[in-house]
């Protein structure tokens, strides 16, 4: 199971706590993590990436193991520490807007 930390507003939308666990099918990549998250919590569809273009929303970022993974290609494999559950994959609402 992969641990995912959600931002406050998505916790409320998904009616979960701060951290959820998801099961990823196939190769564990950024894309498959987001897909698994949307499959487990359908109300999150469209909130992390645009449903039509598939692009990550501008003010949503991905962090794991102290690094920003937001600009990495969707097919990038997630770190072993995340895969093994030692570290969470963090979906973050960017600090912006004043």
């Amino acid at each position, binding site marked *: 199971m992969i641990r995912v930390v959600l*931002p*406050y*507003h*998505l916790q*409320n*939308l998904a009616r979960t706590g701060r951290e959820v666990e998801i099961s990823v099918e196939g190769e564990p990549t950024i894309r498959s993590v987001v897909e698994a998250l949307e499959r487990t919590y359908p*109300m999150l*569809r*469209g*909130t*992390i990436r*645009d*449903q*039509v273009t598939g692009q990550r*929303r501008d*003010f*949503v970022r991905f962090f794991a193991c102290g690094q920003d993974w937001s600009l990495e290609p969707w097919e990038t494999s997630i770190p072993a520490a995340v895969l093994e559950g030692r570290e969470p994959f963090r979906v973050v*609402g*960017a600090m912006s*807007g004043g």
Partner: protein
Amino acid sequence: MSGVRLLVGTRKGAFILTSDKKRKKWKVSGPHFAGWEIYHMNGSAVNPNRLYASQSSGWFGQIIQRSDDGGETWEPVGNQFAYEGTPGTHMWYDGTQHPWEFKRVWLLAPSLTEADTVYAGVEDAAMFKSTDGGQTWHELAGLREVKGNLWQPGAGGMCLHTIVQDSNNPKRMFIAISAAGAFRTEDGGVSWAPINNGLNSPFELPDAEAEVGHCVHNIAMHPSRPNVLFMQKHWDVMRSEDAGGSWHEVSGDLPSDFGFPIAVHAHEPETIYVVPIKSDSEHFPPDGKLRVYRSRTGGNDWEALTKGLPQEDCYVNILRSAMAVDTLDSCGIYFGTTGGQVYVSSDSGDSWMPIVSNLPAVLSVEVQTLK
């Protein structure tokens, strides 16, 4: 419950205000969806306990919420708004063509006759329809075929912000877009025609014959007279006798004919309401006095309604979707301000009182009259 239910969308959440028929004591519920922008909430005329809310944020995009118990509980429904086919382009601020991009839902309009049908007006301007209670949406793409390549965003974005349904003819609807103009369909949204003849903006739109490009702010209609339309344009209050075929100005003696909302009395088809705003450069009431203006003659002759409203140092705005009218015997008028006040008049505008005074900026107000 017998009385009224006010659906208030704000910059930071939704609020539901309820009262009995006297409309003196109010219960406030909210914030719902705290921290999110609620551009609009609306209830079904067929099933009043079915409510919809447009919930959005610059971070997480568009959510549509639905309640089937009058706002006690909510569930997210479909939020995929995909333009039909290749979206194409529209006019950008610099005159170049710009791709159509979905940004948010400005308005939700449940069908007056079908419980599971609801329309959505969106930015970039288009109209969507759902026939399954908001679970799935498809575009009424014929609208953008009406010279959509010439439509241009207004200052608030290129939004479809007004949907008026003819309760006598479900296939006829009127919509308005900033800054494209007003349009009418006679076939349920398959095909559309511009209805902007007579709108005049000589400095912004020198071509008086232009079919599109008009900055319409809001349209209102009394259900008993579906051919008579009232419009608050960017400047000018307008009236049509022929379902938008032509328009003439009825601004008359208003202190300013700039404004956003316009409404019609529930029982008097010739009684209309506007809230004059000083100008498009200064979005607040003239002289710092918050005055609703009422015409009992369908325009031209206006009276200021001030009792209970602040008459000094008031510099709020009233947005286009932030005025509503109930259908109780003594007609109630409501409006919300960017200062977070929601006002009620239970006597057709003669006197007013604040229901709440410190909400986030109010984006929209709708009212349901509950039997």
